[in-house]
């Protein structure tokens, strides 16, 4: 299992889309990189999420990173030599009633004041044009036109493969057991040898909390298992990704006619066993929403349901940036069920911070220091 050199400029822990993207961008900046992944790249949240590439309805603190990412998504093949199955048909937030719509309006006005214009109000007529299958009662919504969807595992693997092609030493099936100081370096001990680097990136997703805690920087992270289900192919009836303002539902029809249904209903995550358990009664609530809103879906058959293991932070924002305690340690985990779109841009920004010490993309409010003293 042990391959390649035993030291590098950067060791990245975690082969999700974030770890792979950071590794790739570091290598593009001329740094030598070792990436360590306990399973295979994209095995967990990065490979089995809904694939939404979404700026719509993001927390304000994430919008700059999300913007940086969206620019990369729209030219993704240029970066990783694979289109990652990315398509951009927009994402639509549906207001089911006037109260929902008023909240949508307030949100878009707030974004406009902050200088963000990616979310736009749409009225009932335009909503019906874009999403003809939606129930007649919905008075409008919000659209983010550059949003879309990609194929998660393929995208993550594309980042990994490109990183490998430009020299990143990717070690899959290798588990980190300990991280310790060694002079000016960090020694990363694994079940297949150890390696040294002055800088390490904790991109371990749901397992990132343990690494942070071992480094003396605990964060309130919980491993969760958001559930998704998918139907057998149906005639084409919807192009954009649809999410609801009030009830929790996300909804996407692929080119082959299958419809992916999500909404953040949680099963049970067993991170130590690499396993999740579905909760059918919660999934039933999820599907009942579909049944009510999209009559066309009532006869569809569900062919698969699953959940990935994801790290959710108490405030539902990621931990991103330098360690508050250690020189040479960087955190990039806990994306709280909405990290896939951020992967390409966050990797670029992280690599910039590592290589140059700073980035023009603001990441205020995402640092680990927000939890200092809270434990």
């Amino acid at each position, binding site marked *: 299992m042990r391959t390649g050199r035993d030291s590098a400029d950067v060791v990245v822990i975690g082969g999700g889309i974030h770890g792979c993207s950071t590794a790739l961008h570091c290598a593009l900046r001329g740094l030598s990189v070792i990436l360590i992944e306990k399973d*295979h790249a*994209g095995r967990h949240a990065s*490979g089995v999420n809904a694939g939404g590439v979404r700026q719509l309805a993001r927390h304000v603190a994430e919008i700059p990173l999300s913007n940086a990412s969206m620019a990369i998504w729209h030219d993704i093949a240029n970066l990783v030599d694979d289109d990652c199955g990315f398509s951009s048909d927009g994402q639509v937030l549906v207001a089911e009633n006037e109260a929902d719509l008023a909240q949508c309006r307030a949100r878009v006005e707030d974004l406009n004041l902050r200088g963000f214009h990616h979310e736009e109000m749409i009225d009932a007529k335009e909503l019906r044009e874009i999403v003809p299958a939606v129930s007649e009662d919905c008075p409008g919504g919000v659209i983010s036109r550059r949003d879309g969807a990609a*194929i*998660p*595992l*393929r995208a993550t*693997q594309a980042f990994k*493969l490109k990183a490998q092609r430009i020299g990143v030493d990717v070690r899959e099936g290798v588990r980190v057991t300990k991280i310790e100081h060694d002079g000016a370096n960090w020694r990363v001990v694994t079940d297949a040898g150890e390696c040294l680097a002055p800088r390490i990136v904790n991109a371990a997703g749901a397992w990132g909390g343990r690494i942070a805690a071992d480094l003396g920087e605990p964060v309130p992270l919980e491993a*969760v298992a*958001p559930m998704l289900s998918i*139907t*057998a192919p149906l005639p084409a009836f919807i192009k954009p990704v649809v999410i609801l303002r009030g*009830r*929790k539902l996300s909804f996407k029809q692929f080119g*082959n006619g299958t419809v992916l249904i999500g*909404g*953040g*209903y*949680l099963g049970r995550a067993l991170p130590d066993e690499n*396993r999740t*358990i*579905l*909760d*059918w*009664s*919660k*999934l*039933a*609530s999820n*599907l*009942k929403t*579909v*049944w009510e809103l999209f009559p066309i*879906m*009532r*006869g*569809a*058959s*569900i*062919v*698969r*349901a*699953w959940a990935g293991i994801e790290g*959710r932070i108490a405030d*539902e924002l990621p931990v991103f940036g330098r360690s508050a305690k250690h020189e040479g340690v960087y955190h990039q985990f806990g994306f*709280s*069920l*909405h990290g896939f779109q951020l992967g390409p841009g966050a990797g670029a920004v992280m690599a910039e911070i590592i290589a140059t010490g700073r980035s023009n993309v603001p990441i205020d409010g995402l640092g680990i220091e927000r939890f200092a003293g809270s434990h």
Partner: protein
Amino acid sequence: MTPVKDIATVAEAYDLIVVGAGPAGLSAGVRAAELGLSVLLADENPTPGGQIYRAITTTPVTDRSILGEDYWRGSGIVARFEKSAATYAPGCTVWSIGPDEATPGSFELGLSLGGKARMISAAQVILATGAQERPFPIPGWTLPGVMTAGAAQIALKGSGIVPSGRTVIAGCGPLLYLLASQLAAAGTEIVAVLDTTPRSNWSKALAALPDFLRSPYLAKGLKLMAATRGKLRFLTGVTGLAAQGEKQLGGIRVERGSRVETIPCDALLLHQGVLPSVNFSNAAGCEHYFDEEQHAWLPRLDEWYASSVAGIAIAGDGAGIGGAESAALRGEIAAFGAAFRLGKLGESQRDAQAAPVRAELSRRLRGRRFLDLIYKPAPQFLAPPQDETIICRCEEVTAGQVRDAAARLGVTGPNQMKAFLRCGMGPCQGRLCGPTVVELIAQTRGVSPAETGYYRLRPPVKPVTLAELAALPATEAAVKAVVR
């Protein structure tokens, strides 16, 4: 036995749920009910019998010589089940299994019957989901006119229908001879039986020959061979097959080493043995391993057929191919195990009652190893060498695409392959392509199937409608527990 027609009349909870009404499931259900367990036997077919005794209570093929005495043995097993106290749900699909959060140690199973779904609790579960045919991908196997031998047998047993026109049967395994004799007896015009058994298998199987010579398989096999070989045209040593035709099967190209001939035909029945049907046990989280001799993934089981998941046992051919008689015996042993775990049977009683069943089982399984070794399919029939051969019918993925992804993109296992090619993501969830995809990746990378791994199966194990799932009663916790 109490039959259930409406899922609303199924109880909330049972001591034991048995999935599958073949010989293993029926025997497990009977024995468990006799030992005082409350038993629900759920089966997706309309009548009991499984594949081997399919339609035993309803078949229109009443001439007993056609399907043979081994088939009619099923009548006795079903009759015994009908006298038991078990509840029987025919036409009922079991589509999920997971822990029952309300009762630790128990399971919650998703059942669907008559267009309605319910979650039912069980303290113990016996999966008796049997076997499936090993995929047999050759060029042209998706043409109309080509079907599996098993499908032909279903049509014969269930409806008394046989293929029309000139029929060719191709492949290997003991069932190939059985089917040839059944179809011939039922009036099918069989123009050729093409035997793909590799000649080199003999040297590997020789060590297992003495056991086979003392086994019940021998007499049965000789009788079948005598019945078929004398009357039908047999070609042995077949090394290559391709179904030919434009929109419909017109013939089959047969290679035997360097000799090539084309046999015109209207129907082609393919069969190269059976595999344990592991989709359910895989989705249940049971541990599996790759058995080199059966060349298949098998669940890891103890001597009571208990799996790595405490409370789930796997009986019958799903535990490893052993045939109908041994399936029934394994069902009984699994029932003893379940009764013991529930405290309905003491340890010494369990062991004593199981002893004669075990003795009979070991007699029944004697000689099995020889059959596994002699009928192990040749590599070119496990992984088609022709790039254009379709291997995933749901998503129309070819052998060449899989090889390319394994070689060029460095895809090391079938789960990663899904992301690139979607193979295994259709409604069959890899039942038809899984073994072939594993074989192709393994051959391309020069590693074993064991190292390549298998699909992680997702529930529902069988498709279930959105309307049924949406109508499942929702708990209050489910309504509240919503996150962004």
